[in-house]
């Protein structure tokens, strides 16, 4: 065969070398096969740390109890003791620095999440006190009568 037939091949080789060179420069050094092998662990290792550094917003009820000892203690004794503070008071973020004040959700909608009566046999929902929102004191806020930290009217 005449030698000229190899010329396209040289172009291809040059192209491949070019791509490989670019790849060496472009791909981060920590990209590779990690613990879980090629199928499940081929990735940029630095990303694991990036996810670990993701900012936390919810701090947990113990964090609240550090300062708001009284409120926390009163809640624990009531039927609402199982509810984490931040479910109603909102995520703490970096409270008390930022935000300085949390916005408390006192809406009827919030209470309705648990206390609308649904027929749910085979679910714990059936055991919770439930109302029909179309019948039960329409237009009023729940907190007008019920203290969220001690909701049972008999205990009040």
């Amino acid at each position, binding site marked *: *065969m*005449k030698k*000229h*037939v190899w*010329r*396209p*091949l040289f*172009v*291809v080789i040059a*192209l491949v070398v070019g*791509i490989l060179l670019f*790849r060496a420069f*472009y*791909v981060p050094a920590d*990209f590779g096969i990690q613990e879980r092998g*090629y*199928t499940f662990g*081929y990735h940029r290792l630095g990303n694991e740390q990036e996810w670990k550094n993701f900012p936390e917003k919810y701090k947990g009820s113990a964090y609240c109890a550090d300062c708001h000892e009284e409120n926390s203690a009163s809640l624990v004794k009531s039927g609402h003791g199982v509810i984490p503070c931040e479910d109603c008071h909102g995520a703490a973020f970096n409270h008390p620095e930022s935000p300085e004040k949390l916005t408390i959700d006192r809406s009827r909608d919030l209470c309705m999440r648990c206390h609308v009566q649904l027929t749910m046999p085979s679910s714990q929902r059936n055991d919770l006190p439930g109302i029909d929102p179309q019948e039960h004191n329409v237009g009023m806020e729940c907190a007008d009568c019920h203290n969220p930290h001690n909701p049972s009217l008999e205990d009040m």
Partner: protein
Amino acid sequence: MVEQAAQVAQMLVHGEAWTIKDLFVLPNEYVYWSIQIVLYPYMTGLVAGAFVLSSLYHVFGVEKLKEIARFALVFSFALLPVAMLPLLLHLQQPLRGIHVMMTPHFTSAISAFGIVFMTYGVIVASEIWFVYRKFIVESIHRLENKQRTGIDGLLLLIYRIISLGATDLSPAALQADHKATKILAGIGIPVACFLHGYAGFIFGSVKANALWMTPLMPVIFIMSAVVSGIALCIVSYAIFMWLRRWALAQGKNFFLPDQLAGTTNLTVENLKEMQIHETTMTAKYLRIFMILAITLELLDIIFRGYTAVKSWDILRQVIYEHDFVKIFILQYGIGNALPFVMLLLPGLTTRRACVASVLVLFGVFMMRWNVVIGGQAFSLTFDGFMEYHLPIIPHDIETFKEGLGGVLLVFSAPFVIFYFLNMIFPAFYNSDDKAH
């Protein structure tokens, strides 16, 4: 509540604009793979099919296809970049598309895309180089000895670069070109089949999707690819020939290379004869591949219905109820049965072959649609449906890319590319030497 609705409108997630959910569908389920993913296998199919057609002549020496083979090769090259376009339009991060080449994760079917695509591109480009080397060198000589206008100068520069300095036109050298063409076309067939078969694998290997997951998928895709590729070659070949005839009769020459290559000594009658001969011959091969493609597709449906595993209940509803018109009327009826009969009837004319081919192209497009969109027409839970609505009027860049605008862009791109490519590699150039 009103305020909330306003916010929702501002925060449309990908897929929400064109998906209508019915009954129970998981919160994150949308038609994520929309029109561009319909076009992607369609366009790769056309590339692969056009290449297989050209190889019928180059490898198996089907002399009758000589004229259309050269056209199919150049057209296949023009289609090649367009096969990539839908993917780029679909990616949420198109600028990172290069990552497929940088860190390929070969357990994924998509990862092979960059490499297979490049390999295929290189093979087609090299084959064109060998087929056109004589023409390139001759063009250099001709342009050098001529008073050059600006465009001539540019052409000369392009020819000089792509000749790669190989100017030997001795019979031995041309013989070597011929041999190389044959080898490349031979390698090209499996690579073309792989390029498209693996597009089928992308779908066939998704175990989460009850409609897609079948080992038949790659084979079905290859067959329908060849069908659509041949059909497109028939249609576009016939159209370009009509244009040439018209141009010749008018004494105009819109196709620059005809003039350059000195083939304008053809008469209108010559062209007509050539056109009818090539289109009807090609139509024969179209029929053969159509039979294979339809057989496999029907086998798939029959098998699913007969085995009737858990997912069949929802698939049956999608196939026989929700998508009945799209599958049985548009795809099988208008797209397969009707053109098949048209091609079988005796006395096939160019015009009839063309109309049939257009219907076949439509049928294959509907097949891609029914696979890609149909596969997302039902929830992963088998308890609900999703309906896809192609965005017609774009509201933003996303509804343009994944809407009618994107479709038109993708469909028109190969013809624009071909127009310019044809100036450098005249697809209708008739050389009298037997080599190619």
